[in-house]
């Protein structure tokens, strides 16, 4: 079943098209990422799902029911806010029990549910503290518990890991993924970090300028970008101009070529190849990065650390398997 459906949804603020004719169908139980730079419309889409914003055009459904015109408090959808938005005047336990309290659940029952939710996010016994007494990572877990205790049909996460340091972020990525699996709740999360989106999501929608540029699995988006923007934003693909692509024996369209698909030398019989001059090299630990200029285009190649690195200024030939070059939809 479709958990969240967007049909030509737009949200314009005056002349600004924050969200412009977006179509989405998020499946039940899916871990869905909305990826894009700031101002790309991904957060507005999340707010449209939560009900903080109303679409200026189009139609939104949550599990088949019309959502536009429904206030946030009547949607069985909960949000983990970027700044966590914990209530400073309430204890952690009261924070977590808040959603149950306003829905009229009896005190004993809601406090028990809140305790369980805290245990689920590995914060048992923290209930009597205040938000100010917790670390950033702990507050984020509380925010998660506060949302999940309501058993939402969809959980929205707004840059959930943005404020955490790297180590904590990696740990939380795994935990979130495991939590989602065990609960079976649809997760929709917004991020500007492509690595996060690729590693966590079942599917990714890449946003730019209020529109969905590409929607697909992480592998799709990473290996087969449909637009230059996606190729550029998701990872560090080489984007090749139509003329260069044509010279390699393909139709004259924009194309992407991943740096790790390139190798030094002539390659096999069905490999494609081009020559250029080494303009820069850098040592990245497990790999060496080589920047080659060929026909006025700078192209990056990742070489295994074991390979010899030609010095700057030498002429080299690079090759790649024909199927590794991915032609994009954009012609010119």
């Amino acid at each position: 079943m479709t958990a969240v459906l967007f049909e030509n949804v737009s949200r314009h603020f005056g002349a600004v098209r924050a969200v412009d004719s977006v179509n989405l169908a998020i499946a039940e139980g899916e871990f869905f990422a909305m990826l894009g730079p700031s101002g790309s419309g991904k957060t507005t889409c999340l707010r449209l799902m939560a009900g903080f914003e109303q679409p200026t055009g189009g139609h939104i459904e949550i599990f088949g029911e019309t959502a536009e015109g429904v206030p946030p408090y009547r949607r069985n959808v909960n949000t983990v806010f970027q700044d966590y938005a914990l209530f400073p005047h309430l204890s952690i336990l009261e924070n977590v029990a808040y959603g149950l309290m306003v829905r009229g659940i009896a005190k004993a029952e809601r406090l028990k549910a809140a305790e369980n939710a805290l245990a689920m996010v590995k914060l048992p016994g923290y209930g009597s503290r205040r938000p100010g007494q917790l670390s950033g990572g702990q507050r984020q877990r509380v925010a998660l518990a506060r949302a999940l205790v309501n058993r939402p049909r969809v959980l929205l996460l707004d840059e959930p890991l943005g404020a955490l340091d790297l180590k904590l972020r990696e740990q939380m990525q795994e935990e979130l993924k495991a939590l989602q699996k065990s609960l079976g709740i649809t997760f929709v999360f917004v991020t500007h970090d492509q690595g996060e989106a690729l590693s966590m999501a079942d599917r990714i929608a890449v946003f730019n300028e209020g529109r969905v540029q590409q929607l697909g699995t992480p592998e799709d988006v990473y290996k087969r970008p449909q637009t230059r923007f996606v190729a550029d934003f998701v990872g560090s693909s080489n984007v090749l101009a139509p003329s260069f692509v044509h010279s390699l024996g393909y139709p004259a369209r924009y194309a992407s070529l991943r740096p790790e698909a390139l190798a030094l030398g002539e390659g096999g019989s069905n490999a494609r190849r081009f020559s250029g001059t080494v303009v820069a090299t850098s040592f990245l630990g497990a790999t060496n990065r080589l920047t080659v200029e060929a026909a006025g285009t700078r192209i990056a190649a990742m070489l295994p650390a074991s390979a010899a690195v030609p010095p700057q200024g030498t002429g080299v030939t690079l090759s790649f398997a024909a199927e590794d070059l991915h032609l994009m939809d954009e012609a010119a």
Partner: protein
Amino acid sequence: MRSDRSSAPMSLKITAAAGLLFMHLPILLIFVYAFTTEEKSYQFPPPGFTLNWLAVAWNRPDVWAALSLSVRVASIATAVALVLGTLCAAAVSQTRFFGREAISLLVILPIALPGIITGIALRSAFSFADIPFSFWTIVLGHATFCVVVVYNNAVARFRRISGSMIEASMDLGADGFQTFRYVILPNIGTALLAGGMLAFALSFDEVIVTTFTAGQQQTLPIWMLEELVRPRQRPVTNVVAMVVVLVTFLPILAAYYLTREGDQIAGAGK
């Protein structure tokens, strides 16, 4: 602006201390005069000290009547100012609309303009509309300039409630009224109480607008003003002055402690 390594230069210490003394010594003098035995002049040093005037002032019905009127006016004016000020603050800080700036200016105007203008404007409006002076004409004037005190306190606190806190409440299933009751009110409560205290102190003490809106009624400040212009009861006035100082200190101290604690709570939530 903080510096942990330097201490203040001596000249700064002295000028700051002198400035503070200048602010406080005259008020302390009031306490000395309340107990003087001299009753015909303002002689210093007092020839002797007595507790007698406290009893005399206690038994003055005119002082009690003036005090009671002042307290009643200040209570009602504060209540009105609390409602109006909070509503204005909510409208200005929680929504975006054309004319927001104009509203904050409008609220500040009654204290930004000299009190005599507010006073005379209200008085001529009363006479124009044939409204006789009454308890309510005083309240109307006082509430008008008390709004700003509540407004300022409330706006400052509203600013600290992050927008996402209100959204979080609604997201968790609380409707507008529940959000107000469970999230907004607990967070602005102390600020409102502090604003109310200050509004009370402001109203309790006000004389300039009151002279224009009171007619023949005597609030405590008006009673004092008459004593100032035509001293008849110097010892009683001395005692009343002391009592007024003490009475206004209490709400100010309370307001201070209320907002201070609020700051800590709000700061902790960051």
